[in-house]
């Protein structure tokens, strides 16, 4: 069983560590480096509780070897915001009661960031699709969808300004030719 | 779990196929993933020992009925096989022991069990040969009842059916190839008038003497 010296940059801090080839990224983060905000919920890559962002993309850290992440930039829930200075996504979850036991929540939020980066103004259906890889057993998802929508509004201040009305009345400017 | 099917071998006779399927060496060569297939005497099969034994043995495929008769499957006897089942990245190696419960041309029935780590299986299998309708080949009708236990059973359920079907398919395709390559010609029962031949034929053909009237 080979051992490997790797470097992980987690939330901006560089860590050198030695891992067995088989060590999963999530175990390196939790057991070796103490980033226990990232949870393990299954072993079949389905629940998404272990989702972190690796080089800017949401990945399931239970389905990557630590050695594969050598040199990568990892971002975990610990880097989002503090209780006094929430990231909009955290704020969304708090305001919309998007969590109950909280176990799936870190992974849920890391995926939500991906969704919102791809699509700053997702529909409810798009959010549900985007969260396909994250299971929650407590909330029934409805308030999670609300939380992500809430965050989307917060993160797109410009869209909020006229977003509320433009839903009912799309592109009024280009429709000017049509008169009653 | 039950599987069954019919496989048709072309351009051959029931006797030839029976002879081929009587030969552990040919079966070993035709079974995908089979490292060895050996007769075992002891109550417990020691697979490490059997593996060494297999490496030391010099058994070749042959079309010589006499040689085949010498090593042919015998009713009531037990055989050990080391079988690797490859399904993509999943490659368990099963230590398998099979008992020939019945061998009465054109019918054979065997049962066995195998284990690989914390997975195992038990199976009971039968097979019957008949001439195809066009008279040009042999139809092998087979059925297997298998129970799978442990990890493979719990997690590999969806792969078992197609994999079992594929193994059977590849097995009979190989048998057919070997038959043609070797040009196996079975000793036909009509050839054997003398009692010595007679017993050889009976042995190879797995025919029980008492029921030879058919």
């Amino acid at each position, binding site marked *: 069983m080979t051992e490997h010296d790797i470097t992980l940059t987690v939330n901006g801090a560089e860590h050198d560590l030695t891992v*067995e080839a*088989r*060590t999963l990224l999530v*175990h390196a983060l*939790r*057991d070796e480096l103490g980033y*226990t*905000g990232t*949870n393990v*919920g*299954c*072993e*079949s890559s*389905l*629940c998404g509780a272990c989702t972190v962002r690796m080089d800017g993309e949401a990945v399931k850290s239970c389905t990557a070897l630590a050695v594969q992440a050598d040199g990568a930039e990892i971002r*975990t*829930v*610990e880097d*989002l915001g*503090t*209780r006094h200075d*929430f990231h909009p996504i*955290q704020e969304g*979850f*708090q*305001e919309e*009661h998007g*969590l*109950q*036991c*909280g*176990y*799936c*929540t870190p992974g849920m*939020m890391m995926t939500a960031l991906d969704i919102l980066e791809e699509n700053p103004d997702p529909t409810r259906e798009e959010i*549900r*699709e985007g969260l*396909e890889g994250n*299971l*929650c*057993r*407590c*909330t*029934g*998802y*409805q308030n999670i*969808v*609300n939380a992500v929508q809430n965050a989307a509004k917060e993160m797109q201040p410009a869209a909020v300004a006229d977003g509320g009305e433009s839903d009912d009345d799309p592109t009024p400017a280009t429709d000017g030719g049509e008169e009653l | 779990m039950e599987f069954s099917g019919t496989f048709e071998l072309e351009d051959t006779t029931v006797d030839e196929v029976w002879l081929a399927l009587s030969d552990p060496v040919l079966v070993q060569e035709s079974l995908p993933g089979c490292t060895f297939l050996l007769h075992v005497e002891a109550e417990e099969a020691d697979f490490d020992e059997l593996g060494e034994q297999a490496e030391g043995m010099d058994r070749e495929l042959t079309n010589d009925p006499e040689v085949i008769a010498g090593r042919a499957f015998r009713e009531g006897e037990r055989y050990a096989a080391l079988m690797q089942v490859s399904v993509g990245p999943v490659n368990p190696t099963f230590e398998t022991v099979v008992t020939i419960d019945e061998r009465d041309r054109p019918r054979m029935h065997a049962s066995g069990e195998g284990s690989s780590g*914390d*997975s*195992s299986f*038990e199976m009971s299998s039968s097979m019957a040969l008949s001439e195809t309708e066009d008279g040009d080949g042999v139809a092998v009708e087979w059925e297997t009842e298998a*129970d*799978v*236990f*442990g990890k493979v*059973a*719990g*997690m590999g*359920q969806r792969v078992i059916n197609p994999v079992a079907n594929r193994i059977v398919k590849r097995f009979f395709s190989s048998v057919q190839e070997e038959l043609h390559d070797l040009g196996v010609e079975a000793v036909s029962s009509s050839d054997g008038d003398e009692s010595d031949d007679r017993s050889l034929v009976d042995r190879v053909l797995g025919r029980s003497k008492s029921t030879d009237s058919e």
Partner: protein
Amino acid sequence: MTIDSLDPEDVDAADILGSAIERREDPALLTGNAEYTDDIQLDGMLHMAVVRSQYGHARLEDIDTSEAEAMEGVHGVYTYEDLTSDETPGGGSFALPTAWLLDSLEQVPHPVLASEKVRHQGDGIAVVVAEDRYTARDAAGAVDVAYERLDAVVHPSEAFADDAERLHDDAEGNVAFDWEIGDAEKTADAFADASHTASIDLENQLLIANAMEPRAAVAEYNPGTDELEVAMTTQNPHVHRLLMAGVIGHPEHKLSVRAPDVGGGFGSKIHHYADEALVAWCSMMHEAPVKWTATRSETYLTDAPGRGHETKAEIAMDDDGNIVGLRVDTMANMGAYLSTFAPAVPTYLYGTLLSGQYDIPAIYGHVKGAFTNVPPVDAYRGAGRPEASFLVERLVHLGAKEVGMDPVEFRKRNFVPDDAFPYETQVAVVYDSGEYGKPMDEALELLDYENFREEQERARDEGTYLGVGFSCYIEACGLAPSELAGQLGAQAGLWESSLVRMHPSGTVTAYCGTSGHGQGHGTTYAQIVANELGVPYDSVEVVEGDTDEIPQGMGTYGSRSAAVGGSSLVKSAQKVVEKGKEIAAHQLEADPDDIEFENGEYSVAGAPARSMSMADVAGAAYLAHDIPAEMEPGLEATSFYDPENFVFPFGTHAAIVEVDPDSGEIEIERYVAVDDVGNQINPKIVEGQIHGGIAQGVGQALYEGAEYDDNATLLTGSMQDYAVPKAEHIPEMETESTVTPSPHNPLGVKGVGEAGTIAAPQAIVNAVADALEPFGVDHIDMPMDAESVWSAVQANATADGGAEPAGDDADPGGER
């Protein structure tokens, strides 16, 4: 309607109880600062792994641990013999107890490690203690077990078959118990006299809880003090401490059990399993901290599944559509052993709810429990009550059809009338309060029911099959009082304990013996206590889940926390207020009877200027310079609240579905839930509980089910194969509520944790049956996956000669 959350700072102190304030638990959970059991890292900590059975049923011939013991990094490998040896610590029973007894119950031994036989795949055979998780797992894999496989049984009907393999020597015919409720003779008479009857034959499948956090425990034994501390995923730490003390033979007062943050439970973390006791024992054995965290596949093999009924039932009606009788015969799967509270689930939590929301004059229920080779079955969200509600509502659906009435009209006709409360059913319970018509009317309005029926007919003309299904559910929460529970077989009291402690500066710590795991008790309990004491919400801290800090407790399950735990806090707070009153009277030089208490202020009646705040009183209580003679200093109170009765939440859920008979696919178009859970402490949290409950009910209706093969090998042993619903699978839910306070507790609350799960399955199954009525489909067993729906349509199509709607009245063209 979505409820908007409020910032607690924006809520007036007087309004705090009943406000939808944001949860105070969230910041820790949202920033990665939560501490779940597996997050605990201790110096010198070892890891435990369990060797489990390869077979559903087998005799153990040999356990060879030598290879595992020889591996580098392995500190020990233990079998049952090692546990019970005189050389090793602990002198316990090393067997898991059953804490609910029935007269006919066959109590069978349940050793924490199997020594002679394994009876389900999750049965532990040996444990390994090693330096890290990976090595422990490697070594567990190296333990060589020789088995003699035995035939297995999965379903109760198989277990009861004449030639079935017996699991336990003492349990003849694999019968765990034989139990009945109601009046068999009266019910038989009712059926004999009835004008109409309808019957059903159904299976209520086994479900696996799948709390997102797998079970885990970290035990730390201190050889210097002989104290053993166990942090574990539990819903009821005090109960676990009591039971574990006996199992491992360590005195209760030297054992502490703590629930750190717990990632969901849904019942699965109530029961005492072997693994947590083994971790504790290993810690004593090695005099070192030991951790065990279940892998997800282990939780599939060991977490107690729920439900598992095979039932035949029938309903009888008179000519006017009045229900005159109901008769139920159920075989209940108990699994391989009797889990902690298992015997209560298919009996007193099931049979007592067979009257539903209806006034039924004759009911008889018969339940036979079966030992089978699945894991021990116990409470899963709802526990017995979903099975009852599902059955009653399916029968009511069929009964309405049988008498040719609209299902809504039929239900309304048979509801327990508003003026009949408290209502005594034929199955041994008294409903506290209810107005069953109200949620139904609200749901009808939300659905626009009349219009829907027209739309349904139009759609059928176009070959689109819509259906509506109702579920008028009832549940019983806060099982009580203890004396009654004892008569029914509970080996525990079902009170709840709390301590409310004023600090000298006027802030408060409230301790409660319940143990939340996502329900937001930290928030709701603070709302309750702040309201009672009239102190700011932010001045109240809530402590739960630690046997060292909290006097006693029974835990969180059965939707009991608000009704029983919350009431206990009210009681403790009221004691504090009473003591404070005497101090205030003393200081204000008035008679205690003349002191009024409102909004945190004690004042003399008729002289409001003579007043003291709660904080001032607290200060005075601890200064103790000037308090009444004979009074002890300090200001705190402990109480044990034992409720007078159950509380009975109720409501109407309704689903509108579209079913595609070609693909068997079901689309939930609308889901409407109108619940009456009594007074609400925090409506946002109530909404969240309803949402989550419905999602699990939808899961049961459409997706979930533990499937075993004939050898009792679990085929749905991972999330790859067991469908835990995803975001796309759960419909948008429209929730409303009505409020009928419970008269039995000071808060007027009824409990909400399980309501959604109890209500949802039958709403959906009834809707699908309604949609497929033209095809003659009456019932489809859950989970109604696409194939089962398609097959049901096909089965009827075959009978009627084509996959077309059957029967004359199904051809709407002919009607016009």
